[in-house]
């Protein structure tokens, strides 16, 4: 660093960059994860029991369950039509005996039948600011527990850095910050700025750098107990680990994709998850709902009419038609082109412009909780290998077995940038073997603990064929409002119609928007009728 040319402002910018704030902000913006979710609206829906309003909801996932729940309470007559064999959409918790309906690759989950051996194959986490999701957990009585999303004792591992050796995240982060702080300290100490700083500023900066990087009183980084002791610390004095090589840290990639993970919008610790599985959210809605739900019913036609919407669906080899006053449609947008409809051209074009996301997960039943022997209790190891992440269960600590998330692929490989379709095309057995081999580079004997596993490539799950709708900035600008607002009496909904695609909060937010819009128009209609009579 050529400190001689640093202006004070530039220096402050640099501090921001080194400390991560700017970098983190830009990273998360690039990932499209930085939108406000806000507090849930106070829905005060007009009761319409006497007006006999009918509503058909397409798809049985979070957004439609939420809408049916609210409308039912306001006296609407609802029905839900679901194409697949189950309720919940991408809220899917797999347990012993469950069927995974991957097109061409049906699997049965072979986990042992134990309450703690489950796998959240879709939605898995609820951060504290997802207020709509938390609101429904609260009112529906879904018991939550803290989930250690971030664990500094878990590892970062890259085949191309540190000889492929897994490094504790705490060690990597302490050293990275320590060295950065030392550079900052030196720059401030030498007063290497265009404009001099006040003595007070200078002194505070030096102290800040010492504190931020855990430097010694002379502003040198010589290791820190933030990285964990090499030995000791209890019956004898703790001994610091030797430091990592700073240039090797800079050569590695973890600081690009993982170091600030737990500081991003949705992933800042702590996160929460329902005790016993994410599908408890779905079950909680079902306990309250009277709305009939028809499963294995595939929609073939959606026709918008002046006074309602006609839905033709196919159930057990027969066609049925239902006519309702309003339709709430959570069918993945990429399917709409294959369904008969009379949508206006621009509306159909908007729906066709969303791309399919390709999230895949693997759940592995491990014969032994070997990670707990490595002082890891919950949290996530990051790797630049294709599997991306390993999640250790936060629940069931000290039980014999546990379900580990063995791969988390979202779109493409961090290292090779290969699209994660490579993973989709493998057979379920190949995927487990693949996850095992890459896991071996992180934990010794990892694959020998694998008893069985399930893989869920959402891009090829029956009636889903995707997870995480892709919106480019241009598509967002052109179509978001068009699709968020109803076309006639038809509302497109779901996490796909939100700024939080692939999160339950996105589905809740979309449902909330639609409910408020419906209520407004129904109030206006009713007022007009009353005025006329």
């Amino acid at each position, binding site marked *: 660093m050529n400190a001689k040319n640093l202006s004070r402002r530039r220096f402050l910018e640099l501090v921001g960059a080194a400390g991560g704030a700017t970098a983190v902000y830009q990273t998360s913006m690039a990932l499209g994860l930085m939108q406000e979710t806000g507090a849930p609206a106070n829905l005060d829906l007009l009761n319409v029991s006497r007006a006999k309003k009918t509503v058909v909801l397409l798809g049985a996932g979070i957004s439609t369950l939420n809408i049916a729940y609210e409308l039912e309470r306001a006296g609407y007559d609802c029905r839900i039509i679901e194409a697949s064999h189950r309720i919940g959409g991408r809220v899917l918790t797999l347990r012993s005996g469950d069927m995974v309906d991957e097109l061409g690759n049906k699997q049965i989950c072979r986990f042992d039948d134990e309450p703690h051996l489950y796998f959240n194959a879709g939605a898995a986490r609820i951060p504290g600011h997802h207020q709509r999701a938390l609101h429904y957990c609260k009112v529906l009585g879904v018991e939550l527990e803290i989930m250690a999303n971030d664990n500094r004792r878990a590892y970062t591992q890259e085949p191309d850095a540190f000889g492929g050796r897994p490094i504790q995240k705490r060690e990597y982060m302490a050293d990275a910050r320590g060295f950065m702080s030392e550079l900052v300290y030196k720059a401030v100490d030498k007063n290497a700025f265009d404009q001099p700083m006040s003595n007070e500023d200078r002194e505070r900066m030096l102290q800040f750098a010492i504190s931020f990087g855990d430097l010694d009183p002379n502003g040198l980084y010589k290791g820190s107990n933030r990285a964990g002791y090499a030995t000791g610390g209890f019956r004898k004095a703790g001994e610091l680990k030797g430091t990592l090589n700073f240039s090797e840290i800079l050569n590695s990639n973890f600081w690009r994709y993982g170091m600030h993970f737990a500081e991003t919008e949705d992933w800042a610790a702590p996160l929460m998850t329902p005790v016993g599985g994410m599908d408890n959210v779905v079950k909680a809605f079902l306990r309250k709902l009277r709305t009939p739900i028809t499963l294995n019913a595939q929609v073939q036609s959606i026709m918008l009419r002046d006074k309602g919407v006609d839905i033709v669906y196919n159930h057990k*080899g027969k066609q049925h038609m239902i006519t309702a006053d309003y339709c709430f449609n959570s069918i993945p947008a990429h399917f709409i082109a*294959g369904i*008969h409809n009379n949508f206006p051209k621009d509306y159909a074009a908007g729906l066709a412009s969303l791309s399919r996301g390709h999230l895949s997960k693997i759940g592995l039943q491990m014969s032994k909780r070997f990670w707990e022997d490595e002082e890891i209790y919950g949290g996530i190891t990051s790797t630049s290998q294709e599997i991306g992440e390993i999640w250790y269960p936060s629940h069931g600590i000290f039980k014999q077995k546990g379900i580990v998330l063995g791969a988390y692929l979202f779109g493409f490989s961090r290292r090779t940038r290969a699209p994660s*379709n490579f993973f989709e095309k493998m057979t379920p057995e190949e995927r487990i073997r693949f996850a095992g081999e890459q896991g071996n580079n992180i934990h010794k004997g990892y694959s020998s603990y694998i008893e069985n596993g399930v893989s869920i490539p959402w891009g090829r799950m029956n009636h889903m064929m995707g997870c995480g709708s892709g919106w480019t900035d241009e598509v967002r600008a052109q179509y978001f409002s068009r699709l968020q607002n109803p076309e006639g009496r038809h509302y497109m909904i779901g996490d796909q119609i939100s700024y939080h695609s692939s999160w339950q909060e996105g589905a809740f937010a979309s449902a909330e928007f639609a409910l408020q819009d419906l209520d407004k128009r129904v109030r206006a209609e009713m007022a007009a009728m009353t005025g006329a009579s």
Partner: protein
Amino acid sequence: MMSGLRLSRHFVDCAVLLCLAPLAGAADKPLVPPEKFVYCTVCHGADLKGNRNIEAPRLSGMEPWYVVRQLEAFTKGWRGTHDADLAGIEMRPMAQALAENDIEEVSRYVRNVKSAAPESTIDGDRNRGHALYQSCSACHGAGGEGNEVLGGPALTTQNDWYLATQLKNYRNNVRGHAADDTYGQQMKAAAQLLGDDAAIMDVVAYLSSLQPKEESQDMKKTALLSSLLLTASVANADVTRHPLPNNSTFPIAQAVEVTAGTTIIWHSGTVPGPANPDADRNSREYYGDTETQALNVFKRMEASFEKLGVGFGDVVKMQVFLVGDPELGGKMDFDGFMKAYTKYFGTKEQPNLPARSAFQIAGLAGDGMLVEVEVVIARPK
């Protein structure tokens, strides 16, 4: 947990057969797929018209034999194994999941599904595409109608964006890469002839312009009308038919003259279909004798002409290829051919005669085939 299938009070819900009237008419009703093939419609659409968002091709209108062949190609790994063929990779396990009986059954289901004609989504130079297509027409037919004998599927019933993707796949060795995939190899070589993307877009734009559109009924009427008009005047402004000299009654023209500005159609050779498909493939009965085969050829040409909006009266030039009939000591059965020919040419209803040549040749593509007829057509204005 759920309240089951209780029908709610206010809903209209019944089997569609009883109340589909509000829909746009019976033709608009998607066919209910057999239970075990419901999953096909997830990606290919309720009426199998294809879904670009999933890169799933149109299946409605696809010939059953081609459906079978492609499902087998997926099963064998000829398709759906190349790293760059992401959509094919998605399809392959579906094909693998089908039992052998299922493949036949699925082809029957596909044959029964009707859907609206594909929309044109690709811009290109149709005239250039037309010229480029000439090399394709040998296998896929002059009007892109397909030719089972040569293994070329129909192209006019497919979505244009899918044709473009597949042409690129062939050109880039993403499709047709397997050594024993004969047809794929053949097509890969053919796709090289097209060269760049622009050429592909032009050909596809041309094919898309041949696709049967909604107004095709009207177009057919117009075509019929104009061929009637042509019948009335043997020599019109565009086509002059010079008769054979010496008042010959032989039903061909000495020469046919076509003025500039007339659209000329080169129609591929047409071979017969089986006269008796139940007969053994190698038996005489399968294709029949020369007369039977020629009648069959003209019938097939009639179907192709109808799609092109032309009639036998518009044919200006014909080449007849006859294989020696083993039952006639290896000599061609010219008389047999003429019996069939005179039912279509030189009649009261259809007096227009083409310039014509006939040859005896050593053999045709299919064993037992005795007749192939190739024509040039002047499109009526």
